């Protein structure tokens, strides 16, 4: 089975980020980066499928040169080779542009299965996988919590997460694309041998084509402001509590 995993490099969770001077992006020139969390689960799932079924795991990433960090990490964990679609503008690109860049590089590969994370920790569009499926002409399913490949290798049965504790099994023919939910499996650590082996693995770097995408432009990025000052509720405990419950019901309407 030839499996592609799309990974994104994002600013480390909880990094004290600030808005850049342009006010349209963050100041990330000295930020710390890591593999987008759901993508790490997608990679792990791909590695497990490969261990089960044999074949190859190819890690694909679209982004600036710094992305090589997470590509190497993926190779160290066990991916066989990598495709890096390189372009500075991809760092802040929208889902459609990223999907277009990836699709361009992946088209000729005829993957049996493409896995992506559910969404990214930075822009959080949650679309790249689905748009990529559309561009590659693959059936897809999203928010996947379990993957079963049929014995004949021709189809999949996957468990989708729905809202409020509901799930659903969905079958579809291969090749297909799945977006993977965090927590589907247990991530492995990169090993010393994996890191050494990664050095010898192929990273194919292709320049990003300026893809035509519909486009959404960030006019301004800002820290959300609290809409109003804190309303302190005075009085004895019972009085304050009664007033709070009233406000929560009638003003905030959250009860």
């Amino acid at each position: 089975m030839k499996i592609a995993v799309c990974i994104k490099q994002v600013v480390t969770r909880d990094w004290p980020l600030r808005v850049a001077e342009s006010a349209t992006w963050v100041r990330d020139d000295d930020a710390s980066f890591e593999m987008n969390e759901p993508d790490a689960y997608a990679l792990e799932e791909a590695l497990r499928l490969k261990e089960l079924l044999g074949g190859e795991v190819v890690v694909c990433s679209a982004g600036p040169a710094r992305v090589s960090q997470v590509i190497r990490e993926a190779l160290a964990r066990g991916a066989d080779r990598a495709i890096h679609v390189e372009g500075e503008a991809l760092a802040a690109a929208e889902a459609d542009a990223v999907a277009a860049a990836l699709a361009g590089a992946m088209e000729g590969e005829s993957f049996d299965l493409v896995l992506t994370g559910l969404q990214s920790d930075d822009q959080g569009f949650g679309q790249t996988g689905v748009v990529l499926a559309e561009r590659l002409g693959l059936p897809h399913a999203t928010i996947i919590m379990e993957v079963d490949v049929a014995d004949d290798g021709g189809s999949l049965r996957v468990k989708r997460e729905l809202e409020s504790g509901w799930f659903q099994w969905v079958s579809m023919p291969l090749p297909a694309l799945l977006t993977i939910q965090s927590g589907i499996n247990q991530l492995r650590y990169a090993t010393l041998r994996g890191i050494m082996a990664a050095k010898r693995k192929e990273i194919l770097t292709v320049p990003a084509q300026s893809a035509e995408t519909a486009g959404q432009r960030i006019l301004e990025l800002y820290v959300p402001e609290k809409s109003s000052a804190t309303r302190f509720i005075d009085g004895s405990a019972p009085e304050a509590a009664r007033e709070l419950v009233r406000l929560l019901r009638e003003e905030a309407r959250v009860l």
Partner: protein
Amino acid sequence: MILVVAEQRGGALNPATWETVAAAQQTGESITVALVGADVQKLAAELAAAEVAEVLAVEHDALEPYTPDGFVAALAQVMEKACPELVLFPHTYQTRDYAPALAARLGRVFIPDCIASKVRDGQRVFVRPMFQGKFMADVLPQGPAPHFASFQIGACRADACARGAAPAPVREAAVEIDAAAIRQRPEAPFKEAKQAVDLTQAERIVAVGRGIKGQEHLPVAQDLAKALDAELAASRPICDSGWLPMDRQIGSSGQTVAPKLYLAVGISGAIQHLVGMKGARTIVAVNKDADAPIFEVADYGIVGDLFEVVPAIMAALEGEA
């Protein structure tokens, strides 16, 4: 014209649909609501009560149950005929599953997970969180209309949806679907207890901090959570001490949540905690220390001893129930 795509499952409307209609109404534009499924006349009539121009019943046997392939095919046809300027969806798991493919097929932009839309310098922009809610972005859709956007659940109030004086007309929108071309074969949904607590999905959270003093006092917070139908969560010291499991920890190295109601009791509000819950819609803080940073992000604050205030809140809840 704005097209709102309604959502239904198993003969019931997803209430988030009303919120999206309400969001569309705020623009003052003419609204058409599309409802997709196999037998949706009854629900379409229900939707017609809203103050909208028209309800489209997009019916085909192949559209039940939901599949992304089926919905993309059907709605692509609806779009071509209806020529809306803007298409709005509730930001549900189903929307996330097919709307990006639909937009891509039509070569349109889809701005997901919006919390508002506003006019900025004469242009309609959409406001959406980025970087896990650390920032908001004003996003301007580019390219040819219609633009697609989805609204976060809770971004608008369902009861803000205006009702029409008379029911809106319901029209059948015929679509052609090749059932054989639908590649996904869904099975019946089933409910399953989640192995792990998913605080990110909780609508209400009661979070407890050091002010609770000891593990033996936890029932105070547990009872409040139960009374509010809320999940119990905690700041790091509580989980560090092993009083609650780590999957209930909010903040850096824990969960980032944005519930409708976040009630923080005995939490001072270290920045490590605030980064995990600042995005909550309504924040209530109960703390002894009036200078605690938690009050800087709280909407409602009670300065007092949680062991007095929390039981009083319980009593007040019971009193009004």
